[in-house]
């Protein structure tokens, strides 16, 4: 169980022969993820050496999915080619099997490219895009699990807490906090720090609400946009499971981009205090400090009779 990605999901790697693609595909394979092959245009027929396994390389996603019946694809191609890779994957999943999860790790994709790519994917039912500019998604198992992305596998363990976050390393921090109170994770999703992305907070929260393995959710937001406020309103109406949160950027000055392209307070909107206020009002307990997420989560689990 877990959301969208089963523990043994069959994974393709777009850009598998590039430096990033080879490195991270190897890490995933070492962790026990079921990497079944990759795609690099012009390198079809080659074999990619991932240390623990050797996997085939195809020229196109359509060939790769037809041959492997893959469930998911992870994209490590450079920013200028990434939106085309997303669109190719979406079309291939649609035509070959009708479903698929596309995880785009690439950072620095032009915003208007993502406007076009998300519009394309939105029109295809059954295909989901996670990212871009994100650590990826992981569903841990007893022996490893489906690690689709760049997160350090070793900090995770299978469990019952769902994690969703805009930030990379802050997701790891949240995972470490669940472990500090002896809780593992069902699925952890990094939705990414770009202004325009695929899957959002509400998609994740709604899937965690429906997932039998998940009993509570940790949600990590950051300044910029109004996604946290909208998620909070959704939680108040629809969520029965406890949600705890943290929002980064209380001290960020307006008008300055804080690393992530989307992390900017503009026109007085998108401040951390507004987000925390909206989340608290929706019954989401928020930590002031990421080191407190574990304690806040424990309290919520106890109040819900889960500990």
């Amino acid at each position, binding site marked *: 169980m877990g959301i969208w990605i089963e523990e043994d999901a069959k994974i393709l790697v777009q850009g598998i022969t590039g430096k990033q693609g080879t490195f991270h595909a190897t890490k995933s394979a070492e962790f026990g993820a079921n990497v079944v092959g990759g795609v690099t245009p012009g390198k079809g027929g080659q074999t990619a050496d991932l240390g623990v396994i050797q996997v085939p390389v195809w020229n196109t996603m359509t060939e790769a999915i037809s041959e492997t019946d893959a469930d998911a694809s992870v994209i490590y191609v450079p920013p200028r080619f990434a939106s085309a890779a997303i669109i190719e994957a979406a079309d291939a999943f649609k035509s070959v099997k009708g479903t698929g999860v596309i995880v785009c790790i690439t950072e620095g994709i*032009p915003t208007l*490219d993502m406007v076009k790519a998300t519009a394309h994917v939105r029109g295809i039912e059954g295909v989901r895009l996670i990212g871009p500019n994100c650590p990826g998604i992981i569903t841990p198992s007893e022996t490893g699990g489906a690690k689709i992305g760049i*997160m350090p596998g070793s900090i995770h363990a299978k469990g019952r807490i769902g994690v969703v976050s805009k930030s*990379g390393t*802050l997701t790891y921090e949240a995972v470490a906090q669940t472990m500090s109170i002896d809780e593992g994770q069902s699925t952890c999703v990094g939705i990414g720090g770009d202004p*325009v992305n695929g899957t959002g907070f509400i998609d994740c929260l709604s899937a965690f609400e429906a997932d039998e393995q998940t009993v509570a959710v940790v949600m990590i937001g950051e300044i910029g946009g109004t996604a946290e406020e909208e998620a909070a309103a959704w939680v108040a109406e629809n969520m029965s499971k406890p949600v705890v949160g*943290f929002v980064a950027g209380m001290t*960020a000055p307006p008008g*300055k981009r804080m690393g992530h392209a989307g992390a900017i307070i503009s026109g007085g909107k998108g401040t951390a205090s507004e987000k925390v206020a909206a989340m608290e009002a929706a019954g989401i307990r928020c930590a002031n400090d990421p*080191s407190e997420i574990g304690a806040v989560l424990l309290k919520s689990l106890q109040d819900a009779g889960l500990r």
Partner: protein
Amino acid sequence: MNIHEYQGKGLFRDAGLPVVAGVHCTTVEQALSAYDDLASKIVAVKSQIHAGGRGKGVLYDPETGAEVMQGGVKIAFNRDEVETYATNLLGNKLVTKQTGEAGKIVNNLYIESGCAIAHEYYLAILVDREEKMPLIMASTEGGMDIEEVAESTPEAIHKIHIDINVGVTDAQAVDLASALGLDGSASDSFVTMIQGLFSLFVEKDCAMVEINPLVRTEGNEMVLLDAKVSFDENALFRHPDIVELRDLSEEEGTEIRAKEAGLSYVKLDGNIGCLVNGAGLAMATMDVIKLYGGEPANFLDVGGGADEQQVETAFSIIMEDPNVKGILVNIFGGIMRCDIIARGVIAATEALGLEDPLVVRLVGTNFEKGRTILAASGLNIHTVETLAEGAEKIVSLIGGGQ
């Protein structure tokens, strides 16, 4: 990336969009000769800085701090006034609502022909993150602060979402013109203008185009009297012409150098330097420092795969800030290995002769190795287990908050 108004108007002019004649100047002599060339009795003398609120700003002498003039955009009715205003603007410090107290030195002017204004409107194009579509916002309340309009009379702001693959349809453009109360030739002029401006927005990968005011002239033509244009940094690789418009004097020097080194740095006003991997964690680190009574001196994200050299560059950038009294390093090693960070920290402290207190928190991949390396170095480095401990420690080491 931001550009100046005069550069934005140049792009508009090249795209066939309606702007009035104007000349970019950097000296009083050029301003006077521009006035003679424009042959318009009335001209606007506009300071060019990368910040809004110029009209209501105040000019100060950068040496003495004495007030020189009210208003960074002046209407001149004769040659003498052009000379006075150009003299008062150039080389002086303009403080507006958006510049903060530090203000910005005015190095560039734009002398623009006058225009007979019947009404002022507000117009902006940007990307709506939640809808994942471009959004056009327009209002009949031009010249005003749009945030104030949004607050007091939100119904006065008209919004339409645009399908990026289609562009602004005739029907959308006509509806918007009508919502703004435009008809006849003004409506026709608006429709052509908005379709052209949207094409420019997409073609040049703009982040935002804001026109405040857009005006209807007494001749019932629409004119773009303002141009606040910014571009998506991620798309600059395909726009070498836009990169050439960059005015580095308007940007923080250290931030530019950090970017060249693959680091993301933003200077702040506090005294505790921070070095972190990941944007979210870097923001959280600043927040927790503040929570423990300190003030962060910067945001600094070394990214996911920094090497020893980048860590050293990051330290040198942090230490350039004379306000820094101590440094907190917070690394959650995923891809990045903590032993490499530890070596970088030691190399940097030795090379740069760091004497300020240094607190280091390393977690994740190879953290034991990293901590052992730091402990064995014999340097005065405090290692901690959690972010909270780290923040508390650095705040106490520098003698509490400011």
